[in-house]
């Protein structure tokens, strides 16, 4: 991309100040999204991807706080320095968000059309009639049959897939430059999931919108993303073009995720798992945060927090294996990984 990226997240830190300690949910995350591209953000639950998404639109509420030093550059301004009115002008207008649970994301006491039209009324000062026709237009765009009638219905009268389409319609009203989709298909059936993804891809092609697709499902990434960011422990651990990521994953975590995907046609006796659990965000391990679950970890991993190493064109990985590739020999099987987590032996295998 020769032009400036649409969105640049720079060293984003979002901490939650709870009774149990400070949870560093997002701890120094940086990435770009170019105009018209789909960036996939992948990771397990608890890695900070949703919090990252919410931070972009400053939707983080007490006791969470976006730490000073973070920067989110969008269309030439730092979103974190805008006043309340300023960020509200961006929300739903230049950057729109689609949430995970269509069941609960819509207000049950307003009609679907009303809720979509509200975006136009808030941002374009549209009259009721104009806003309403825009709402119906959006419903048509997302492929809902009989849109005029549907617009007068309430959320509880629609199916899950239709509700998600409504949320997408709501996001598109002002033709935003960026849509952040936080696990948009997780709560839906597989068949509906496919439809929604197809819809998003289609809309992107037609309208040129950038999409930040947040998910834990690599299958979704494979289908829609052009570039991928893998998150773990509140950090970016790998970033690459999607083909590269699937063909030549570098970070052991990415490797683990790919192996953990059940593949049709492949004979497996057991699903491979990444041993252990995500550590709590109130107490990230020292050094590399993945080391307790990593098959290759050695003493350097506990001592030294790995920076993002440059692997290839547009491919970075937060792993010391980039510096010492000869260490990529599994010292332990998956079964013994947690047992030996405490004493990462030094010396050659």
């Amino acid at each position, binding site marked *: 991309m020769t032009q400036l990226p649409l969105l640049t997240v720079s060293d984003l830190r979002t901490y939650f100040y709870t009774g149990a300690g400070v949870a560093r949910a997002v701890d120094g995350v940086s990435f770009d999204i170019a105009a018209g591209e789909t960036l996939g953000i992948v990771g397990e639950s608890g890695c900070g991807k949703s919090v990252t998404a919410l931070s972009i639109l400053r939707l983080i509420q007490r006791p969470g706080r976006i730490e000073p030093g973070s920067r989110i550059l969008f269309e030439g301004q730092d979103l974190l320095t805008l006043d*309340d009115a300023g960020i*509200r002008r961006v*929300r739903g207008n230049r950057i729109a968000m689609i949430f995970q*649970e269509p069941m609960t994301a819509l207000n*049950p*006491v307003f009609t679907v059309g009303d809720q979509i039209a509200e975006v136009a009324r808030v941002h374009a000062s549209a009259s009721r009639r104009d806003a309403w026709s825009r709402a119906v237009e959006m419903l048509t765009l997302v492929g809902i049959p009989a849109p005029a009638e549907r617009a007068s219905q309430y959320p*509880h009268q629609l199916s899950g897939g239709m509700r998600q389409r409504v949320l997408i319609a709501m996001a598109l009203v002002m033709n935003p430059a960026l849509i952040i989709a936080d696990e948009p298909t997780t709560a839906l059936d597989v068949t509906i999931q496919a439809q929604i993804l197809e819809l998003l891809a289609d809309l992107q092609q037609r309208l040129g919108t950038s999409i930040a697709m947040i998910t834990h499902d690599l299958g979704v990434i494979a289908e829609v993303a052009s570039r991928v960011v893998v998150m773990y422990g509140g950090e970016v651990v790998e970033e690459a073009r999607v083909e590269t990521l699937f063909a030549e994953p570098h970070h052991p975590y990415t490797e683990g995720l790919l192996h953990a995907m059940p593949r049709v046609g492949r004979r497996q006796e057991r699903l491979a798992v990444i041993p252990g659990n995500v550590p709590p965000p109130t107490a990230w391990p020292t050094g590399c945060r993945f080391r307790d679950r990593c098959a290759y970890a050695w003493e350097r991993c506990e001592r030294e927090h790995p920076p993002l190493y440059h692997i290839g064109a547009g491919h970075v990985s937060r792993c010391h294996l980039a510096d010492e590739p000869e260490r990529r020999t599994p010292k332990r099987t998956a079964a013994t990984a947690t047992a030996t987590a405490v004493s990462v032996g030094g010396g050659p295998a």
Partner: protein
Amino acid sequence: MRRFILRRLLHGVAVIFIATTLSFFLVHLAPGDPFSSSLESLATDPRVLAARRAAYGLDRPLAEQYVRFLTRLVTGDLGPSILAAGPAEDALAAAIPNTLVLMGTALALGLIAGVALGAWQAMRVGSRADRAVDTASLVVASLPEFWLGLLLLLLLAGKFRLFPTGGATDYMHDLMSPGERIVDRLRHLALPALTLALLSAASIARYQRAALLDVLPQDYVRTARAKGVGERQLVWRHALRNALVPTIVLVGLSLPALLGGAVFVERVFAWPGMGRLAADAYDARDYPIVLGATLVGTALVTIGGIATDVLHAIVDPRVRSR
């Protein structure tokens, strides 16, 4: 929607019918009858009493009496009132509007103040102001109506003489100009309505605050925020509409208690309503009025209940299909 209203109306009719039947059996299970207990009856010749009893069909089988009771009720005949020295229904008819005015005003004031206060608190939850108001409303909500009424009477009417000490109108009322008359009525209404309104507002505020705190973290509020809706709009339009639902339900369920409270307040302020009439009727052993008051009270509560149900359905569309 229309079917919903119809169903509720039928339900209400059934309720009133059952309550009426209950009252009938209540009366007939009681020792004695209308003519045995009043002072007047004791002094009358037993043969005249027997004739009166026969005239009222009190010597007939129960079933027949029941039918007569119902037919009389439909025509609005509640029987003779000793207290009012005339038909009981006339005395009640004069008193009911006063109670309605009192309760209506109290409910309206209490609802507006309570909802606004609850919302105000929810927007600043955890702050010192919020906690102070919370404590205050807990205390106020725990006050007995007659005690609060007495207190207000003592202070505002007795000590500071801002308001009259009782009744609905001044004894010079008819000589006043129309403007003065309105002011006079309002001055007399103020304290009793304020008493009931304060109590309602306190419990509604507590309830509304809780309901809003329940609603504000909901996903759909977050969606609205992500759309660019401002904080105040979020609370007053998006959150409140949902949070009002449990409050409406609460108000509907507490109508009987509100009417009960009105009885005490009417006594304290000598407000000429149904409650005071019933209390006086008790003193006079006048049970056509007492019974009539009970039935009218039930009817009012039922109508109020239907109204709140309809309001509930208007605010929350999910209810309509139930």
